[in-house]
């Protein structure tokens, strides 16, 4: 009876390890804090109506950033735990805890940590930030008011949140995550070798968010191909939009492959099929084959929007058009096309013949060509430009250095004989971190620094921002250059301990310190945001939406833009559309009727049911799975046949809204606003916070007595 009701759930599933208790307490405390704050400020209605059920891609974009930011902290903590374990993991150092033979983590726990780290960083940080950026910026750049399907947008976001919830669920119930590496290769991920719920949580967190990603990708493609402003042909689009288009075309191609493969693994574990099992005729290499058919193009999905960001930033901060627009576009298309023909390089060592290995090695090396076309394009753009070294430009330059290192090590690994030596060594780990951190993460930071004034109306604090950048890049080099060396010395990846006679420990310690430097950089970034809000009046963007003298259409809107983006859809006649509009003299704002999609909670409801389906499958609670499937169908039917999902605001109302906004922003535009104060530095911020908190404490104590 109990089994029918709650499946495999039992008291054993409740947290009883130090990390599951710690993690649960942390999450619950955070949730409680948020709930208390919102309740006290009576903001539940506002939260629900203005944010959670919103279909405005700008709001959804910011929500992606917030969730992605939290997951970045979680993934970063995982990374620090890994660094620390490896720094302590020399064989002559005794284990620090009861269950750890070396370092302070048991082998099984360590495996779960690096698995979670990989999954979180790729799916729930990088994809989150990329989707957030595309959501916010692309409609503004192409002169659209919204995405093609606002409902699919909110649905995709909430499915993503469902995945985030699922990947963190094991803290509360289950106590274990997958210990198989971030791609859970069979047969280790089969029931016979991973009998616990960890791999099931892995499957369903990726499955739920993966479906969200596919829907989002379809949406973005529809938008870019069908909703551009009149006159904006494909070859007049900004390069960030191009990067997003190529990225989403790849995403829509490969995520179905992941969905199918995850289902097959799920069937093996749940229904007893023999796709990848050892007995019964399964083919384990087929799993590796299929998962890498997804996995390789995925990294290009992540990097192409970053390439787009850099193209824009380099152009604006060198005050020059991109050196060769067409070759930049060809470069992006080239990378996307080749990305689908290289996946075997992830398993060169698995016994394919020399000819097969050679083919894939060749194709992999070829990808360096369109990538270089892009890099040289950017450098040529800088040449004879009037360069400004604001923070976005610094991030771009950091990217060039780090990503080049990663790219070159990648081309080395593309050579099968070299790969036979370096496969699954720390050299490989250093390679992909160089490209992902140097490319994707720096791209995200660059984008946030560049577009922060558009999102909030405030320029970011440059002083702290610069410090943050230098901490990041110095920390990165301290952490990952030794990793290349260790790889060449023979250290494999995923090591939780090693023989002290190898002499590796000093390098691992150096890597850990580098990790702390990176962490400081991250803290400084948070400090930067805080300082910018504190000095809001000083840093307020008084240009009315164009602080960098931008070139593309998003700078023509207010900062932050109104919910309808543009009062009237602009007519585009050339590339760098906004720059042309400025040179020719801006036209007066026109007003027209605007169709606005209504908010909807359907995305939230469907995702709740989606989460419950995954949860039900993890714990084998059949009735819950069936009920949730029915629930999803019902919500779809109700939403699908709802014929009143839009409302119209007349041009008259738009005019009023614009006037109200201008009136509201007026005070911030005036000049008497302490703008003779210097920008805050780190020490200033610390003093400010110290006074702020001591003030609160003093008031509270005073009030009490």
């Amino acid at each position, binding site marked *: 009876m109990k089994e029918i009701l709650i499946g495999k759930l039992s008291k054993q599933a409740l947290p009883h390890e130090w990390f599951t208790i710690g993690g649960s307490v942390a999450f619950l405390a955070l949730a409680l804090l948020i709930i208390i704050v919102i309740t006290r400020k009576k903001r539940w209605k506002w939260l629900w109506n203005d944010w959670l059920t919103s279909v405005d891609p700008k709001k959804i974009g910011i929500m992606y950033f917030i969730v992605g930011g939290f997951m970045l902290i979680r993934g970063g903590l995982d990374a620090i735990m890994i660094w620390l374990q490896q720094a302590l993991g020399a064989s002559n150092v005794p284990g620090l805890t009861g269950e750890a033979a070396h370092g302070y983590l048991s082998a099984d726990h360590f495996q779960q940590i690096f698995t979670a780290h990989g999954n979180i960083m790729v799916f729930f940080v990088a994809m989150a930030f990329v989707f957030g950026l595309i959501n916010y910026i692309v409609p503004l750049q192409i002169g659209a008011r919204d995405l093609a399907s606002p409902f699919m947008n909110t649905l995709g976001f909430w499915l993503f949140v469902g995945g985030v919830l699922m990947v963190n669920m094991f803290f509360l119930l289950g106590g274990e995550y997958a210990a198989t590496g971030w791609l859970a290769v069979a047969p280790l991920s089969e029931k016979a070798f991973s009998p616990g719920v960890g791999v099931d949580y892995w499957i369903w967190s990726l499955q739920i968010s993966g479906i969200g990603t596919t829907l989002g990708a379809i949406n973005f493609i529809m938008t870019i191909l069908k909703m551009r402003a009149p006159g904006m042909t494909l070859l007049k689009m900004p390069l960030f939009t191009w990067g997003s288009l190529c990225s989403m075309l790849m995403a829509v191609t490969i995520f*179905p492959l992941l969905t199918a493969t995850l289902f097959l693994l799920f069937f093996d574990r749940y229904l007893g099929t023999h796709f990848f099992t050892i007995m019964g005729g399964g083919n384990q290499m*087929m799993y590796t084959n299929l998962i890498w058919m997804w996995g390789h193009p995925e990294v290009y999905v992540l990097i192409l929007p970053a390439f787009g960001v850099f193209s824009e930033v380099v152009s604006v901060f060198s005050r020059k058009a991109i050196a060769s627009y067409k070759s930049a576009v060809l470069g992006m298309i080239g990378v996307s096309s080749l990305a689908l023909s290289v996946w075997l390089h992830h398993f060169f060592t698995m016994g394919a013949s020399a000819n097969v290995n050679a083919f894939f090695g060749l194709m992999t090396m070829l990808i360096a060509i369109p990538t270089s076309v892009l890099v040289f394009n950017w450098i040529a753009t800088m040449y004879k430009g009037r360069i400004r070294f604001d923070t976005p430009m610094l991030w771009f330059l950091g990217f060039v250095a780090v990503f080049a290192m990663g790219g070159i090590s990648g081309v080395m690994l593309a050579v099968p004989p070299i790969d036979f030596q370096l496969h699954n060594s720390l050299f490989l780990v250093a390679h992909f971190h160089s490209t992902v951190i140097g490319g994707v993460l720096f791209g995200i930071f660059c984008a946030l620094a560049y577009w922060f004034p558009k999102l909030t109306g405030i320029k970011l604090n440059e002083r702290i921002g610069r410090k943050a950048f230098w901490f990041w890049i110095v920390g990165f080099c301290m952490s990952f250059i030794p990793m290349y060396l260790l790889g060449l010395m023979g250290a494999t990846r995923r090591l939780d301990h090693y023989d002290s006679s190898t002499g590796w420990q000093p390098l691992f310690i150096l890597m850990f310190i580098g990790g702390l430097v990176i962490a400081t950089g991250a803290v400084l970034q948070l400090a930067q945001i805080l300082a910018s809000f504190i000095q809001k009046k000083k840093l307020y963007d008084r240009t009315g939406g164009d602080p960098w003298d931008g070139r593309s259409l998003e700078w023509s809107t207010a900062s932050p833009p109104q919910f309808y983006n543009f009062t009237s859809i602009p007519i585009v006649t050339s590339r760098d559309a906004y720059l042309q509009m400025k040179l020719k003299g801006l036209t007066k704002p026109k007003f027209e009727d605007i169709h606005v999609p209504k908010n909807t909670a359907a995305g939230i409801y469907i995702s709740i049911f989606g989460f419950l389906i995954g949860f039900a499958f993890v714990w084998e609670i059949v009735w819950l799975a069936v009920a949730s499937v029915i629930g999803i169908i019902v919500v779809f039917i109700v939403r699908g046949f709802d014929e009143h999902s839009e409302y119209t605001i007349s041009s008259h109302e738009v005019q009023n809204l614009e006037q109200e906004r201008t009136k509201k922003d007026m005070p911030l535009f005036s000049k008497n606003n302490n703008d003779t104060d210097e920008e805050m530095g780190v020490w200033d911020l610390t003093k400010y916070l110290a006074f702020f908190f001591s003030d609160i404490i003093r008031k509270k104590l005073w009030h009490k007595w």
Partner: protein
Amino acid sequence: MVENNKNNLHIDHEAAATDRAMFGFWIYLMTDLLMFAVLFAVYSVLFKSTQGGPGGSELFSLRLALTETLILLTSSFTVGLAMIAARRFNKSQVLFWFGVTFALGVAFLSIELKEFAELIHEGHTLKINAFLSSFFILVGTHGLHITFGLLWMSTTLAYVIKRGLNSQLVRKLAMLSLFWHFLDIVWIFIFTIVYLKAFV
């Protein structure tokens, strides 16, 4: 005059929205096709792994498969006729032809379920070997899609009866007919690669 303009704007807006929706649905169908591609790839690699047990030539009935194929093909034809009626807002014809399609779909599913039931009854379940696993999952996934299609069809027709045919419902029926045609195309390949190939 202004009214007319507003009306035109509205129609343009609707036409653009319909165009986008059909295009988006088409892309979704492509992703569904890719998922089937994985299942076909897996079947092609694993169909020989019978672990000494009977293979397709011993377990399948070509006659049955042909029957299923003809039923589904006819239903794809009738759904096309249904859409011609839908675009003419001919409610009774729509109900008739979609009704026929629905009946054919149900017939297809019943034959397929019977085939599955017989195999399982004889002990050839998807747990036995990789060949049976990939057969059941590939053909079963197609059957699941047909089931969803039938559910979609019945719900939409219910709304058609209740609200009458309007352009929103015609758009939904258009997407459904795309879905149905696409399922027949996938079935062509199942018929060829699973059933016919077993007897080559």
